[in-house]
């Protein structure tokens, strides 16, 4: 692998696919959301594997990259909450919409029902979405607020952050 992402500081979807297998369309439309780590580089870090209640994350050595067994994953978001690198996301397709769950450590923290601006991996605004779930920092096992944002399905693999507009 070229590791071009280390020259830029972000990974493209194509590069991510070279690193891990992504969940199938069928799984993405399944009953539960599914966890997708964007953690392509070997670093000494294991909380995701340790916290997973169903042992869906494989990592033989602490320096290995996490590999998620998408069929085992129950979509609980604990890995998103704990990941120190804020590198875990959950994706769930619902008809022509997708719900992306992501960590959010900036102010303001949006509320359920808020409209937010969607940002891609380089911080460009790519559309608008609606917050459908908020786990506040106090209730997160990883001390990080987690939000689930509904958006057009075609943006599910681009959007990795949001900008909250304050009136």
């Amino acid at each position, binding site marked *: 692998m070229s590791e071009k992402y280390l020259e830029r*500081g972000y990974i493209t979807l194509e590069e991510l696919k070279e690193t891990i297998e992504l969940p199938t369309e069928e799984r993405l439309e399944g009953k539960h959301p599914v966890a997708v780590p964007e953690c392509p*580089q070997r*670093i*000494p870090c294991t909380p995701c594997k340790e*916290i997973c209640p169903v042992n869906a994350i494989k990592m033989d050595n*602490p320096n290995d990259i996490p590999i998620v067994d998408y069929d085992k994953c129950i979509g609980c978001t604990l890995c998103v909450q704990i990941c120190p690198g804020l590198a875990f996301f959950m994706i769930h397709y619902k008809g022509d919409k997708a719900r992306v769950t992501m960590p959010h450590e900036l*102010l303001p923290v949006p509320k359920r029902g808020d409209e937010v601006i969607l*940002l891609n991996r380089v911080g460009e605004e790519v559309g608008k979405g609606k917050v459908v779930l908020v786990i506040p920092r106090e209730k997160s096992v990883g*001390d990080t607020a987690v939000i689930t944002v509904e958006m057009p399905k075609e943006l599910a693999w681009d959007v990795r952050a949001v900008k909250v507009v304050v009136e």
Partner: protein
Amino acid sequence: MRLEEHPIIDFSKRRGRKVTIYFEGKPIEAYEGEPIAEALHAAGIRILNYSNETQRPRGLFCAIGKCSSCLMVVNGIPNTRTCITLVEDGMKIERQKGAQNLPRDYKPPEWKEAEKHYGDVIIIGGGPAGLMAAIKAAEKGAKVLLMDENPILGGQLVKQTHKFFGKREQFAGVRGIKIAEILEEEARSKEVEIHLETSAVGIFQNKNDKLVVAIRKNKKLVEFHGKAVIVATGAMEKMIPFENNDLPGIYGAGAIQTLMNTYGIEPGKRVLIVGAGNVGVILAYQLKQAGVDVVAIVEALPRIGSYFVQAAKVRRLGIPIYTRHTILRAEGDGKVERAIIAQIDENWQPIEGTERTLDVDVIALSVGLRPSIELLHQAGAQITYAKELGGYVVRHDDRMETTVRGLFVAGDSSGIEEATTAMLEGKIAGVAAALLVGKASPEAYNEIKKAQQDLDEFRSGPFGKHIIEGLKKVMINE
């Protein structure tokens, strides 16, 4: 300017009583518990002194008492490190102009007046390594005396709002600020005797007795007597050469973290970060959390040096990282107003026509750290050079003991690495020192072994390779 809202830190709980200090006669509001230089920065004062030969204006640089860039005249006493000296109501502060003498009537402390403390293990430095060493040595029954020259415990942990990597038993997934609280509470519950605002200035020995001489609050002489010493003095930020690199507003990355995350003071409005290692990239994210604009991160190497996931965090917030770029010069009248950056070629030379001017009021340097080994050097421990570990480091064995019997080292002062490894080294040094002074039972060796295995495991990936190379030059094989 002070920060009021922050997603991670509640500053209102941290600030003490309001007091008034006088800067060149002008009253300035400050909070009890904050150092002078930080309070002045909050009031918009960036020039702290003028250089000796050419009277160039100088400001804060390291903010942890290591670099002397913040020396001022405080209540008539020159050469006061204002970045770690706390404000007091009515204090009179003046800019220092070059070298200044002590007032004629000033009486330096005398040996016979020194306050004396006795224990088994003396620890210099209350960061992750020192605190962990203290906890472990005390747990084994040793009486531990710990000193730190800063006004708060926790070393650099106290300004880390991000969550740490590693295993959960090593505090992975916990924020640095929280780790500092946990370690401090544990050290205090184990009755470690803690001396803050106390700078160690010399280590001496007579047979197996060790003496650490220190100065408290810049004036009081203090003696610490024990049988073993653990040096966990951390590291100091490196500087790179470029035009006007001493302009006030050019800070070490750690100083910006101190201003912003320890004392809730806005470092500036628009920041350029030089260096895309973990420190620089994490700083960018922290600035964003504090609501400060990060204009760019420049990195001379063709790749980012931080963990990829840390870089991805800042990229998705729209902060650009320019690899193969460097800073050419800073510009401004008495303070940073602009930075000129450019792309560089394979020979590290700026490429003509790629120069760009950025309007910034702060330039953060995160171009590496070097171990603080001065005390170890003075004590006679053997020093060697290992560039992989940040420069000159002390030689030590796998129990963290140096070439001087009873003198141990742990954390970044033994080589630049991570807080996680600092804590593991602290564990080893703490247990080993307790064994040496006869307080630990032989089973304690198992704890040393476990920590050594954890270190090996942590270093087994690509980020540990250079550490292992460096350690080959440093380790004493018995």
